[in-house]
Structures are given as structure tokens and as C-alpha cells.
């Protein structure tokens, strides 16, 4: 294992501290627990707070999206492990401005258990919460079981929409509805080319023979729907895009936001090769691209691979995406 780390057990605390030291104008630690980070101006009186969280190892997810117009707080777990309910509760109390708090995070068992317990704990503190789960990975379940899908890179769109709604003063139900509406219209699929190495064990998260790729991979290396020979970029883009267009039932005249996301070890150049094909194919199908994001938005440490997300747009969703936002890893406007 070749990693730039100190004690593997201190890895998470140390990179979180680094983010706080690098971006003091944007984020802060509200108490003593290094696993809770909130936007620097929290709590914002009268506005809905948005708490996200999950395992570490996915930067910029989740810590990178804490700031104005995005999430208000993050509860931070170990690599690929849920944060505790106490950390989620501390984040909740630190950002509650009296208008309630939205829990917005990816659909993974451990996270759901701990966030659900935090719902009960927050209720005892007199804080109303709503929960919306990211579940955009079309490869993880067929469409008839879409509520059981995993959450991956497409949650960015939900952060952006919910954050914009909260920032303009929408109430808790409206902020939750904005997030839910975006998630219902988001689809993501990814491929993996090489595994993640876990810092604590030094072991790869999965085995993949030389020259092969895993199609439909999750952001923890969960197996996908197909393993086969590595293909040219255009063929990969076509496979992913066809699945997404079908899932969202996109038609000529529709408008979308496109996110081409690197998994951690894939160069930007390769992401733009993918974007080129996505752009050509959508243009051929007369589907307009109103917003595009190309880069690393949700990674899996040093996994090589990429995912493509599409959000089907309407006027309301596009307005929320275009609202200003500022966090350590994301700016708009």
C-alpha cells in the first residue's frame, strides 16, 4: 500500500482537520467532536437546516458540499462506515435555525439506521426533521424497485436543489419536496477499472483482472450488473447513457443536467473524452444539455472509473441548480 498517510486510524480526523484549516471562512467544527462539520455561519435563523453524512473516502462527497446554498452540516463516519446517531444529532442541533432540519443522504443500511435514530433523538430536543434518501444508482436495482437503489454521485443535484430552496427561505416540507423531486428525476451509472485500497487494512476492496471493467459498480466497489473486457470510451459512454436515457424515459425536446464524475484515480482528460461522446449522443437525440459538470464529485478513494448522472430538468429544477452556492469543493454563481 502506497498512501500519503500517518497513522491509518487518524486518517479521517486528519483530513477533516485539513479541510477546516484550509476553508475557515466556509466551514467550522461546532463542538469537540471532529466528526461534525457545519457551515461557518450556522445556525441560520429562520432557515431550514440540511444535514448530510456517511462514510469517509468519497470526497468531495459529503464534506465538500457544506456551505451556503448547499448542506448546512455533515456527520462524518470512518472510511465507508456510518457516522453515529450522536454525531448526527450534534450536527442537527448546531444547524437548527428554528425551521426544522432535512436529513439528506445516500440509501445505505448503516446510515439509515443511525439517521433514523437521530430523528427520534432530535424529536426529543424539539427539532422537527424530514428524511430524503439519495437513490440514483440505476444499476443497483431495476426500476420497479427504485426506492431500494443505492445513492451515488447524483445526490449532488439534490444537495444543490435543497440547499437553494433552504437558502431562499422555503419551509421544511418544501425543501424536502425539492430534494425528493430532483432525486426522482436523477439517474446514475458507473464503471470501475481498479479497486479502492482501504487505509486501515491495506487491502483492495475487490478484485478485477487486468484488462476488465465492472459496469454498474457502486462507490464502495459493490459489484455491478456486468463484468467484461475493457471497451473504448465511446462504447462505455453509450452503455451508461443508454441505460440512463431509458430509465428517465427521456425524449426529444427534453432538457437535462449532465454530471461526468471521476471515481478518484481517473484523469480529467478521460472524463472529457466521455463527456464528448455524451454530448454528441444527447445532441443527436435532440435532448438539450442545460447544465454540465465534469470532474470529481463523488469518489471511492483511489478507485479508477467514472460515472455519468443525468437530471431531467424543468424550469423549477434548473432555477434551483443555477442559484448561488459556495462550499469548499463547489461554487455556483
Amino acid at each position, binding site marked *: 500500500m502506497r498512501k500519503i498517510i500517518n497513522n491509518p486510524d487518524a486518517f479521517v480526523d486528519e483530513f477533516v482537520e485539513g479541510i477546516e484549516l484550509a476553508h475557515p471562512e466556509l466551514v467550522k467544527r461546532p463542538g469537540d467532536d471532529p466528526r461534525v462539520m457545519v457551515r461557518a455561519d450556522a445556525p441560520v435563523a429562520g432557515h431550514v437546516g440540511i444535514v448530510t453524512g456517511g462514510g469517509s473516502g468519497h470526497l468531495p462527497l459529503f464534506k465538500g458540499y457544506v456551505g451556503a446554498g448547499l448542506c448546512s452540516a455533515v456527520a462524518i463516519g470512518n472510511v465507508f462506515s456510518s457516522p453515529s446517531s450522536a454525531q448526527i444529532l450534534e450536527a442537527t442541533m448546531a444547524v437548527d435555525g428554528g425551521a426544522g432540519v432535512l436529513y439528506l443522504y445516500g440509501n445505505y443500511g448503516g446510515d439509515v*439506521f443511525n439517521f433514523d435514530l437521530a430523528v*427520534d*433523538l432530535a424529536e426529543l430536543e424539539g427539532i422537527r426533521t424530514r428524511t430524503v434518501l439519495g437513490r440514483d444508482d440505476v444499476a443497483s436495482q431495476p426500476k420497479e424497485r427504485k426506492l431500494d437503489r443505492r445513492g451515488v454521485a447524483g445526490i449532488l443535484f439534490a444537495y444543490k436543489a435543497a440547499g437553494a430552496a433552504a437558502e431562499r427561505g422555503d419551509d421544511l416540507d418544501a425543501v424536502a419536496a425539492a430534494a425528493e423531486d430532483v432525486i426522482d428525476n436523477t439517474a446514475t451509472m458507473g464503471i470501475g477499472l481498479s479497486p479502492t485500497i482501504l487505509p486501515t487494512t491495506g487491502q483492495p476492496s475487490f478484485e478485477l483482472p487486468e484488462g476488465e471493467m465492472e459496469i454498474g459498480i457502486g462507490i464502495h466497489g459493490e459489484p455491478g450488473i456486468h463484468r467484461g473486457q475493457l471497451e473504448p470510451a465511446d462504447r462505455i459512454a453509450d452503455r451508461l447513457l443508454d441505460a440512463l436515457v431509458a430509465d428517465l424515459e427521456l425524449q426529444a425536446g427534453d432538457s437535462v443536467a449532465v454530471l461526468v464524475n471521476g471515481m478518484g484515480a481517473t484523469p480529467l482528460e478521460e472524463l472529457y473524452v466521455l463527456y464528448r461522446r455524451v454530448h454528441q449522443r444527447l445532441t443527436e437525440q435532440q435532448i438539450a444539455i442545460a447544465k454540465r459538470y465534469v470532474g470529481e464529485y463523488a469518489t471511492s478513494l483511489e478507485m479508477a472509473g467514472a460515472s455519468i448522472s443525468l437530471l431531467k430538468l424543468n424550469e423549477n429544477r434548473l432555477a434551483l441548480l443555477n442559484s448561488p452556492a459556495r462550499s469548499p469543493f463547489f461554487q455556483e454563481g
Partner: protein
Amino acid sequence: MNSHELNEAIRKSLAAVVAYADELRDLDQALGDGDLGITISVGAKAVINALEALDDSTLPADLARACAKAFANANPSTMAALVAGGLLAGSRVWADKTSVTVADAADFTRAGGENIALRGKAQLGDKTILDAIAPAAEALAGSDDAETALDAAIEAADRAVIETTALQSNRGRASWLQERSIGLQDPGATAFLRFLQSWKSANYSAERTS
């Protein structure tokens, strides 16, 4: 049982249940990830510490809430989150009561089990802690005498542990073993049985302890 008596009974029971931590760890290593032993031992100690800090004016429902928070935070495992959620659900049933009866204990246990079923998406027969909690709650409701009701609950939970051993695990990590889980004793149901047995041995005189 007033708040003072309840606080003491919980602390004595949890001090006794820690003796089963190694057994629960071993059962969980075979079916899950092996962290149940530490969830129980660290969790029990954290709850005892939290209860020691509360005075006798604390309502029974607030005792249960303190137990839930301490248990959830001690070792934030899935089981800890589920049990803590169950305790919070039970505390809502007790609301503003200043003392609790056997019937209240039955209601608490039933509400706790229902919350665990909801959050854990578990049904009876899925081979989880729910399989011990649900029949024990029914048994507790069968008598006004605390010791008689407790004996019946222990018997019901014991039967559930034995009967579910022959079943396949359908929830959590244990379900990944699929048919290989058949014949292995469920650690969650066993943990609830050991808690009831600890309540008995720690709070009642030896003559009637089976």
C-alpha cells in the same frame, strides 16, 4: 415500580448481562460481524453510568430515554441503533407516568419490538431479536405479578431462540449467509433472552430462580 426502583433494577440487570458478552460475540462472529459482544458490554456500562447520574425525580420515560442515548453512543452498531430506537418508542408509551406496572412493561416491550420491526424491516420468523421480543411482550401481559410475568417472558424468549435456530436468517449481515445460517443460533434473540434472565437473577431471590 417507582423511578428509584426501576433505575436500580436496570443497573443491576445490566451489570449481570455483561457476563454474556463473550457468548454473544461468538454467536455473532458465526452469523454477523462479531461486534455484538462489545455492543452489549460497552453499551451496558455506558447505560449504568448514565443512570447513576440521574436522581429519583427522573420520570421512568426519561430513564428509558437516557438508556437509549447512552446505548446508541457507546458503540454505534446497527444493533445499538435499533435497540435505542426501540427504547425511545417504549418511552413514548410511558409518557408522564411516575411509576410503572407489569402491564406498562408489557406495553413498553411491545412498542419497542414494533419500532425494531419497522426500522429493521424485520418480520416474525426472520430470525432476529424481534422473534424473542414479541412473544416475551405477550407473556409479560399475561400476569399482574412481576416475577410470574418475567418467568413466562423468559420461557417465551428461550423457546424463540431454540425455534429460530432452525430457520434461515432473513435480515442484516446474517442474511448474506443464506441457507448456511440454518442451525446457527441468532445472537440478537439470544441477547434479549440473556437480558431477561439477568433481570431475573439480579432482582429476585435465588429460591425461585430457575
